[in-house]
């Protein structure tokens, strides 16, 4: 591999990590939710709400306010979802879809109201890459992983926290038990409803954060429906990562790669219809699901109760 190819490879890897960051955040959150036995389709809505909140927070304050607002927006939607699903016991999938629909409506209305009809072309203060001294100098891998925005570092941290939480704490044990069997966990003294509620909130908050990172560390602006199904891809990533935070993170990087392919092609001067690159991540997700899903075990209680 010559220097130019190494440069291009490095560029592709860095782009992959940047694009994977929202996926990683959302997928880690969803992993926690699903390990508690709940499948949260409203995570797409959490991401979208977080994206708009981040835009608003950054436009009227600074990027850090944006991130805070993003997490808050995701959390707010998660409270609604948790109330009707954990509290009300309704069907998780339909409820999740309904809330995502609602979020599309609310963000659409709020966006126009907040930024006016010429809102398109908004330019927001964003998070620039913040190289980690020392690590960022490692060729290829170093630039890819450690010359990113602080939100990517937050994502790594979240992955590690998720792993630690699930496998090294009592709360994580209780959470996993709840996901396997509500009755057994309850019999063992786990406060299942509170645990599930909390798991949904964590997932939703991270989903909102993911939307915020999409706006503030990748795209740089807001557009209606900009999440374009990333939340749903995150759900697939959770399954493909076997509901384990570290493998989920790897799967996120892989999918970030498929999304970043379009940049490679553009840089190489190859002309292919851009829609192909738009469709590729979804198609890859489908094929991956077909190829791997049979071998992976979800939490036994997923989707029930």
């Amino acid at each position, binding site marked *: 591999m010559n220097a130019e190819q190494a440069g291009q490879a490095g560029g592709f890897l860095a782009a992959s990590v940047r694009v994977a960051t929202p996926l990683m955040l959302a997928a880690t959150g969803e992993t926690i939710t699903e390990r508690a036995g709940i499948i949260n389709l409203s995570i797409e809505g959490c991401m979208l709400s977080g994206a708009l909140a981040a835009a608003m927070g950054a436009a009227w304050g600074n990027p850090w306010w944006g991130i805070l607002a993003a997490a808050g927006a995701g959390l707010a939607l998660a409270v609604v979802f948790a109330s009707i699903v954990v509290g009300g016991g309704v069907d998780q999938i339909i409820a999740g879809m309904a809330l995502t*629909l609602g979020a599309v409506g609310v963000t659409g209305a709020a966006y126009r109201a907040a930024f006016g009809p010429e809102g398109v072309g908004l330019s927001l203060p964003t998070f620039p890459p913040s190289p980690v001294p020392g690590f960022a100098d490692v060729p290829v891998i170093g630039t890819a992983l450690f010359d990113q925005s602080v939100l990517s570092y937050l994502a790594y941290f979240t992955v590690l926290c998720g792993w630690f939480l699930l496998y090294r704490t009592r709360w994580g044990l209780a959470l996993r038990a709840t996901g396997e069997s509500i009755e057994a966990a309850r019999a063992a003294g786990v406060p299942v409803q509170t645990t599930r509620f909390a798991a949904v909130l964590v997932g939703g908050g991270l989903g909102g954060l993911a939307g915020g990172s999409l706006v503030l560390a990748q795209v740089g602006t807001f557009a209606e429906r900009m999440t374009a199904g990333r939340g749903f891809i995150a759900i697939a990533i959770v399954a493909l990562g076997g509901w384990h935070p570290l493998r989920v993170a790897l799967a996120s990087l892989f999918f970030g790669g498929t999304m970043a392919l379009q940049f490679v092609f553009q840089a190489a001067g190859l002309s292919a219809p851009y829609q192909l690159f738009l469709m590729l991540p979804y198609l890859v997700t489908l094929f991956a699901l077909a190829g791997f*899903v049979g071998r992976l075990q979800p939490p036994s209680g997923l989707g029930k109760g």
Partner: protein
Amino acid sequence: MTDPRGIRTLTQGPVIVGLSLLCGAAVLGIELRFAGYDASHALVALWDGAFGSWYAVTSATLPRAVPLIVIGLGIALAFRAGALNIGAEGQFYAGAMAATFVGLRLNAWPSLLAVPALWIAGLVAGALWVSIPVLLRVRYGVVEVLSTLLLNFVAEGLVSFMVQGPLQEARGVYPQSDPIAQSARLPMLAGTRLHLGFLVALLLAFLLWIVFTRTLWGFQLRAVGASPRAARVSGRINTEAVVAATLLGSGALAGLAGALEVGGVSYALFQNLSPGYGFTAIAVALLVRLDPLLIILSGVLLGGMEAGATAMQREAAVPAVAVSVVEATIIVVVLLADRLR
């Protein structure tokens, strides 16, 4: 996964329907007020746009009811077997693409043949589009929830590609197709924009009602939906086959809706042909407990909402997408009401 029994025993009378609509309107009003719009002005515009005049009803509401009824019937069909088809949007576009492709080539055909040709194209394309998730489910155990959802985005990408490429109009200016042949277009009621598709929708609703209540297959459907295990164990009902068949039917209907939209409303293909019919239809089906005849009513109601949304955007500058909260509220209220019984 979805509990089919839970869906099937949605027992809400007109009270719950009314309640959910009221809640929906309330939530919309709150959303608008919160966002700083003139809520009352907007809601009045919404109503006027939907049912405020004869013209509104015949030319704005009923044409929008057509895809909602047809797709809603498909969703009810699949839900009754416990299968979740949230890919109706993508299947709609598949049908629209096929209908456009066929419709552009039928100039020499008589209407009697051209119009049904479009419908067949829609049915086949929709069924083909959903057959991918069906295959993934049957062969690889991939839950249709994710696969149908993801394919929505693929379909939209395909439409985008088509209208900027192979199907783009001859002058190559706008991302849309040329208008389809005159003979393939659906006749309209004079003085209105109400097209034949409405009759098709009514007929389909009636047909499905007969299937559900009067045929052996309808019984099998109810058995599978009520208790997949019991149906399988009885040995007489091949549950996987029933689920697959309903999903295919569901996709075919969504595809037909796309063909009806192209043949009766737009006469061409372009992006965003659907303002989310595939998702609104879920509310259409759930609101009336999957009852095929009542779906006609909920389809008209929510068609009115869509029509009103367009009017609201025109009159009060509120983005039409804001009404999604109404659908969401309806679904949530219906779900909660079911739990309370």
